[in-house]
């Protein structure tokens, strides 16, 4: 059974302008996005800035109210609730079951709180007794590889990687059913990034974590995710199991994203051309397939017809008009 099912999610933001701040248009930040995360599964949501991936994450956390669609969340087997229409009050008892790991380990920890209190805060809010909180903080520090003495120190005493460990301990404090990680390693140095990626892998194995891993490129995603969903200008353009997506992408944008990762091998230089043009403006997306102005495979049809996301191979969904006939290059 799935821990999360996002069903035809829409999120629009009004564009306001002029003295009276009248609504003059709408940005469709997220359009018709559907995906599911199985229990114990990690799904990566990948796309470049402005593609709507963070908006999707914020809708799931209900930091934003969706414009349409359902977000069916199942904290335990047998109980499912749609988060989309719930009021703040109705959401409160559910919040403990979905926790977040943030991108910036410097901005996401309160500099005036001791690390033990930061980690214990979600438990305090949920009414966990003090003695239990203390014991749990020790377990959590050990789990993320920090010494017990870290409890009484302040965030400034820790490096970026250690701070990210503190953020992870806080996210795990209440044993959440789902963790949303928003680019958790993109602000870190490579050697530290590797440590945090390995920690997340260990936690997945030990705790059976279910995770939505938001990322802007396909680098570390290969290591941490079971499946990958690729977004472009507010829509999912491809979903596939990780190995299948890298071996044979079914959408030209996924092919471009794979080609754009700088390969750490001087022999692979100039192998792939950079895609042309720039990401479309979500306030004014091109007609038809939003990727067509940059797509080397675009035909007349792509300028007019919005392609549907459909299963083009077992478990492999693509929203490309030509998915069935194209053979795109992956990494093998």
């Amino acid at each position, binding site marked *: 059974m799935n821990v999360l099912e996002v069903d035809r999610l829409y999120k629009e933001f009004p564009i306001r302008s002029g003295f009276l701040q009248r609504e003059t248009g709408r940005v469709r930040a997220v359009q018709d996005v559907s995906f599911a995360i199985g229990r114990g599964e990690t799904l990566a949501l990948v796309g*470049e*800035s402005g593609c709507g991936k963070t908006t999707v994450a914020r809708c799931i956390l209900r930091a934003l109210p969706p414009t349409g669609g359902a977000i069916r969340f199942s904290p335990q087997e047998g109980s499912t609730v749609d988060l989309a229409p719930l009021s703040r009050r109705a959401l409160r008892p559910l919040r403990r079951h979905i926790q977040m790991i943030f991108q910036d380990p410097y901005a996401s920890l309160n500099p005036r709180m001791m690390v033990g209190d930061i980690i214990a805060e979600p438990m305090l809010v949920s009414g966990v007794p003090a003695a239990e909180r203390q014991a749990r903080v020790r377990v959590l520090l050990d789990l993320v590889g920090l010494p017990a003495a870290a409890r009484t120190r302040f965030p400034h005493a820790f*490096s970026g*990687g*250690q701070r990210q460990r503190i953020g992870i301990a806080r996210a795990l404090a209440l044993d959440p059913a789902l963790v949303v990680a928003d680019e958790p390693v993109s602000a870190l*140095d*490579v*050697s*530290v*990034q*590797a*440590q945090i*990626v*390995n920690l997340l*892998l260990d936690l*997945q*194995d030990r705790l059976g974590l279910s995770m939505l891993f938001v990322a*802007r*490129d*396909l*680098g*570390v995603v*290969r*290591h*941490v995710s*079971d499946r990958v969903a690729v977004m472009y200008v507010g829509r999912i353009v491809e979903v596939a199991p*990780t*190995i299948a997506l*890298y071996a044979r992408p079914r959408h030209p944008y996924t092919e*471009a*994203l*794979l*080609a*754009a*990762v*700088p*390969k*750490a*091998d*001087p*022999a*692979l*230089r100039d192998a*792939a*051309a*950079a*895609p042309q043009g*720039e*990401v479309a403006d979500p306030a004014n997306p091109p007609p038809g397939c939003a990727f067509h102005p940059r797509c080397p495979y675009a035909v007349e049809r792509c300028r007019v017809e919005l392609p549907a996301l459909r299963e083009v191979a077992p478990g492999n969904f693509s929203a490309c008009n030509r998915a069935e006939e194209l053979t795109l290059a992956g*990494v*093998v």
Partner: protein
Amino acid sequence: MLGVVGESGCGKSLTARAILRLIDRPGRIVSGQVLLDPGAPEQQDLTALDPASRAMQAVRGGRIGLIFQEPMSALSVHYTIGNQIIEAIRAHAPLSKAEARARAVALLGEVAIPRPETRIGAYPFQLSGGLRQRVGIALALAADPAILIADEPTTALDVTTQAQILALLRRLQRTKGVALMLITHDMGVIAQMADDVAVMYLGRVVEFAPVQRLFAAPRHPYTRALLRSVPNLRAVPRERLATIGGAVPHPEARPVGCPFHPRCPEVIAGRCASEVPLPIAPDRPGASCFHAEAGA
């Protein structure tokens, strides 16, 4: 093209700022030389110049152009991109306004900005991150420099935009014959761009080598560890990355002996913690490590 690679705090950006004499007080250059046009009759040692002198200003933005990670740190929000490029051109060459404008339009074309005659009137905020970085590159090229220093020029950009900017830098280097010093934390960018690579750790160049040799046979344990920790697009699912234990020490808590020894998997007992390995010789492949000294 020289690639300079290292993690935050290794001194890679500070090296670039020292070359351009842009070190803020109380920081200063303690010793050493920075030779421009070495061996030529017009050879200059930049460390001997006053940072505020006319000669240094002619070098900065003239002989040496600088490209920043965030192009807005080079651009003003108050002026059009055309005005700023024209000003940079005229600061280093005696051209009329009309001549400088024509050259600015040509420069914007060279960095592949679409419709340069129109875009020259745009303000930086009207441009996307990728276009702004192209403007930043045009600005660095304004005085036709011999050397470009690019400090993490693509770190703030999306991957497809990064690929475009790297392709542009490669093309400019080929067509204009400009030397490029590319500073990055990304071994992928180094592999795709550099001819020679300097790996920095805690303020020192710990290894210098031609790019093929560095990737095929890295000699410093730090270089090897950095290369192993790069995410692999061919990884099997849930494959762990190789890590380097610990974190980069604070610059004020520099370890005694080899600066890398507390994190080094190949540390030699009784030696690395007390003795400092020889620095590498300028422009010659090598590693500042006792293992490399023994093997040489």
